[in-house]
């Protein structure tokens, strides 16, 4: 089933005009912000396909900026998000994406923070406000943000994934979907897990203590607009 609950039919609550070009764009921006984990200082956004052709009429640029500021899909401030970003010293530039994209409505965001931290997200808006992230920090991994999602950066060593799932299992946390990609053999790897419940701080600390785990980040769209209970 592509649509799993009643609020993907009635909902989301959003500012118009397009569920895919506006609400979906807010969500892609928000996921990028969550992956960075802090306020970005500069963001380069490449728009592909229909996003590049009609962004100005749909407010896709405003919507992506709104997501980067942490706004929800129905936050009225989305309409002034670019001005607010400028006020906060966030430099956002838009370019037309070159090359193939996974979907007609795709955006690639490259974020930099003052503390030197960077994040990269390639996301597609697949309809009705639902999004699919295809790439994070150069790793080919998927997530929709609809479920609480943990993104783990770790070394590619035997047993790391077993340790991650053991910790989740011990805390009675169910994994709904999981994906893994690596830069190369024994290089850096990323594991993404969509969970059925929100991980608490204790669980995150346990995951971070696993040997060879470098970083654990949580992505979840539920923060603002409570679409998926």
């Amino acid at each position, binding site marked *: *089933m*592509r*649509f*799993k*609950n*009643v*609020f993907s*039919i*009635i*909902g*989301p*609550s*959003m*500012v*118009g*005009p*397009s*569920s*895919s070009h*506006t*609400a979906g764009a807010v969500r892609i921006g928000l996921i990028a912000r969550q992956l960075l984990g802090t306020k970005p200082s500069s963001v*380069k956004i*490449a*728009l592909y396909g*229909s996003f*590049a*052709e009609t*962004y*100005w*009429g*749909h*407010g896709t640029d*405003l919507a992506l900026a709104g997501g980067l500021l942490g706004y929800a899909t*129905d936050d009225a401030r*989305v*309409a002034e998000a670019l001005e607010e970003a400028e006020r906060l010293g966030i430099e956002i530039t*838009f*370019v*037309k*994406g*070159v*090359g*193939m*994209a*996974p*979907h*007609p*409505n795709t955006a*690639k965001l490259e974020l930099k923070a003052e503390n030197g931290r960077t994040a990269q997200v*390639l996301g597609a808006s*697949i*309809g*009705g*406000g639902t999004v*699919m992230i*295809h*790439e994070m920090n150069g790793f080919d991994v998927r997530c929709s943000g609809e479920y609480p999602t943990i993104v783990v950066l770790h070394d590619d060593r035997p047993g790391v994934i077993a340790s991650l799932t053991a910790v989740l299992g011990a805390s009675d946390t169910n994994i709904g979907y999981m994906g893994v990609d690596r830069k190369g053999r024994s290089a850096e790897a990323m594991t993404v897990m969509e969970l059925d419940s929100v991980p608490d701080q204790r669980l995150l600390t346990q995951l971070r203590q696993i040997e060879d785990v470098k970083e654990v980040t949580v992505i979840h769209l539920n923060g603002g607009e*409570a679409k*998926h*209970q």
Partner: protein
Amino acid sequence: MRFRTLKELAEISGAENKTLAEVMIEDQAAETGASPETIVAQMADYYQKMKEAVRIGLSEQNVSRSGLSGGDAVKVLDLVENGTPSSGDPSSRAMAYALAVSEVNASMGRIIATPTAGSCGIIPGVFVSSQERFGWSDEHMVNGLFAAGAIGYVIANNSFISGAEGGCQAEVGSAIGMAAGAMVELRGGSAEQAMHAVGLALKNTLGLICDPVAGLVEIPCIVRNGLGAVNALAAADMGLAGVRSAIPSDEVVSVMLEVGAAMPSGHRETGQGGLAQTPTGRKLTEGLMRGRKPLEPETEEPRAVQAETVE
């Protein structure tokens, strides 16, 4: 969910002596683990936001960012209140309210996607005007939204609800079917009657293409929402009167899938065909593009991501 088809939905409703809304709330709770109270509270919040969108759309001249649309809802409301609408007061009022919400959407106001932003006017148009007319409680209306959601859930999973995939029939068509079926239940009709109303409504929008001028959710989307609200009321009346959809509603949904899959891409939300490519449609598009600098292509190495199945 326990149901995959409209027939199964009506059977569960009949066997357990529950409304469509009750079945939807129960199944949503089972699927998500959330309590029925939480689920109902969220839908109640959505209904308040729909009413707010109607109010804003009728009280202000909502002009879109492109300048292509706005101000039609108040014209129709004026006809209802100061004239004699040919389609009767209730129909025209529903039409005015639906136009109002769609205009709010086009001007970046807040709406609830039902099932999408492009079709966000129909359900509020039908629901809010009918609530005023029949004196129904908010609670009753929220139940109606669950009935609409149950119908939409079946359509979405067996066909489509986005214009890019299946044309306007998938957006405005689905919304009309959802509103019609829900309206039957709101007025005390049976689940079976509601399902027939869905099929009757959907048959009338099969083949409707998605051809917005400049690719924007304005022309003809807003007008189709207004007319869609009237169709939903009419289809609900047929269902309540006992008219049956000779082709079962689930089969009509499968035709929507068949027709949408065969639809040329120019007629699926690309702005490359239909009304968008009429002489006037092109002129409006050119006017919007004038003085607008196209985005510079990115300078770094182009991406090498392979095209994947478009969902």
